[in-house]
């Protein structure tokens, strides 16, 4: 588990984003146990306080649920998980559209190209943050 | 208890140079004794051949030889040097052990105490080695000359008593011995106080050794001046009391100064 952090963005938000992606991709299933905060801090080599803050943020966004003295779990609320997926797709498309608009490509050409490249699987599926 | 433990560490750290020093002293003295007896025997044979020798050897002749006096001088110098070094050693290099000692969650004076006791043990140890070595040297001396039929004059005690360098080692009574030890402690205390003052100021000014010397110099000079003023005005017994009080005063002031600098001002 490696995250390439951006030094200019709050680390805890980057951690939240990282988990959102995992949930959206189904790498973390609904109701699955989250890694412990301590493990995560050691693995990511970041401050445990930051992890704590990230977990708190995820709880507030209802991505995970925490009961007393239990490991946190991914939410079982399908709406939330769907919303994450939508959010991520929307974000990615927004970025994509913004950069493609600069190239002045027609919609048809674009759709055509997407279809072709998508079909070949020639896509970079690096799990990176923004 | 902590003092004892630290004493163990200090002694262990001093063991190697100390053993080298003792070996050096003993080997040098016995080598010199061997040479002395060999040359004296030869000379005596020479005289015996030419006439009647009216020549008596004493143990003092051996003690008066330069190598013997030199060996005592080396021992004294080594102990004076070590009184400085036992502190400066811990300030050496980047890896200063003094830092470790000062960081100990213990009273800092145990460091002082351990170093003082270590010095005293080492000095008493040297005394002891010398006492034993001298006795053995005398036995070797007299039995060799007896076997060579060379007359020996004077006793061991006589030779010792008239030797300026050795007489402080053989005081007339046990009380005097203790008093001599107190004087030795005082010398060490002055050296310790010097080091602690110097080490407390060294980061502030380049003159720290000079300031330390001036401070201690004043501490020595003032009572000594008073002593000369009083000397002609007091009787011997009264003078002894004054000297006794003066020594006690010096001891308390040096310990007090050392304590002040060690606990409040020392810089690593």
């Amino acid at each position: 588990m490696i995250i390439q952090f951006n030094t200019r963005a709050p680390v805890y938000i980057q951690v939240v984003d990282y988990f959102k992606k995992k949930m959206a991709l189904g790498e973390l299933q609904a109701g699955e146990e989250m890694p412990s905060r301590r493990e995560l801090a050691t693995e990511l080599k970041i401050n445990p306080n930051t992890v704590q803050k990230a977990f708190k943020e995820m709880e507030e966004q209802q991505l995970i649920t925490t009961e007393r003295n239990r490991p946190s779990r991914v939410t079982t609320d399908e709406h939330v998980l769907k919303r994450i997926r939508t959010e991520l797709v929307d974000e990615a498309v927004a970025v994509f559209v913004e950069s493609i608009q600069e190239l002045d490509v027609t919609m048809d050409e674009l759709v055509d190209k997407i279809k072709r490249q998508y079909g070949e699987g020639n896509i970079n599926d690096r799990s990176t943050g923004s | 208890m902590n003092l004892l433990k630290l004493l163990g560490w200090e002694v262990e750290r001093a063991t190697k140079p100390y053993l080298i020093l003792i070996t050096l002293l003993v080997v040098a003295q016995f080598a010199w004794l061997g040479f002395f007896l060999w040359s004296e025997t030869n000379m005596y044979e020479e005289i015996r051949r030419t006439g009647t020798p009216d020549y008596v050897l004493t143990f003092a002749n051996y003690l008066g030889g330069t190598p013997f006096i030199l060996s005592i001088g080396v021992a004294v110098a080594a102990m004076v040097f070590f009184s400085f070094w036992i502190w400066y050693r811990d300030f050496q290099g980047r890896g200063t052990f003094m830092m470790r000692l000062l960081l100990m969650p213990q009273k800092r004076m145990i460091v002082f105490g351990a170093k003082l006791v270590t010095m005293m043990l080492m000095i008493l140890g040297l005394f002891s080695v010398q006492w034993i070595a001298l006795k053995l040297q005398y036995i070797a001396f007299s039995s060799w000359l007896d076997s060579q039929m060379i007359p020996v004059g004077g006793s061991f005690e006589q030779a010792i008593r008239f030797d300026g360098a050795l007489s402080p080692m053989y005081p007339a009574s046990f009380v005097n011995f203790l008093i001599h030890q107190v004087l030795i402690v005082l010398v060490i205390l002055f050296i310790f106080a010097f080091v602690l003052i110097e080490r407390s100021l060294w980061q502030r000014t380049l003159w720290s050794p000079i300031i330390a010397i001036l401070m201690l110099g004043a501490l020595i000079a003032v009572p000594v001046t008073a002593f000369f003023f009083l000397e002609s005005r007091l009787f011997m017994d009264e003078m002894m009391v004054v000297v006794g009080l003066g020594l006690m005063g010096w001891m308390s002031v040096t310990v007090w100064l050392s304590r002040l600098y060690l606990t409040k001002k020392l810089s690593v």
Partner: protein
Amino acid sequence: MIEVLGVKKRYRKKQVIEEVSFTAQKGEITCLIGLNGTGKSTILKGIMGLTPFDQGTVLVDGKPIDLNRVAFVPDHSTFPIHFTIEQCEAFMRDFYPKFDPKLFARLVDEFKLFPEDKLNELSKGTLAKVNLALGIAQDPDYLLLDEPFSGIDVFSKEQIVELFSSDIMEDRGVLITTHEIEDIEYLVDKAVMLNRGRIVREFDVEDVRFIHGKSIVDVMREEYGA
């Protein structure tokens, strides 16, 4: 909480620390940042009473410092170089009442140290690990580290960084000095920036990222113009 209040220090003719005040919280990692020779080490040594400040006070949880509760890890060994790691441990056990041999054994294991090694045979990185292990095994509430990463190899750095996010450091307050912030960018809760003997910035790292979108290095660049 370690409170440093209005401390000053002069060396020879140079005022190394003009006037410095800051705090370091328990359970947080506070980083004292400054270019070389700005008096970072002097401040740590001053807090520990190794080079007394000329003025000012240092309080730990409102009281004068108790060496049982605060440990200092300098950037060099404090033991004679011919000592073995075992001997260092023996010394610590003798005179540091809270020294925890089990914790030390665990650290020796994690750092892959060999107790019979002599200090002068160790690489800089290994030596740094030994120092750190000796410091942490004192089980202190606060740990002060002077330049723990300077001049050591990448793997040792990584091991040390991992240690900071592990349970061993849980609940301890850490005050760390460094001039290379990159190594611990993501570890630090709070940064205190020092320039010309004064504190120029004292900030919560995540706050600055969140509000200003700036990294610690960005802030350093602003302050030091480098």
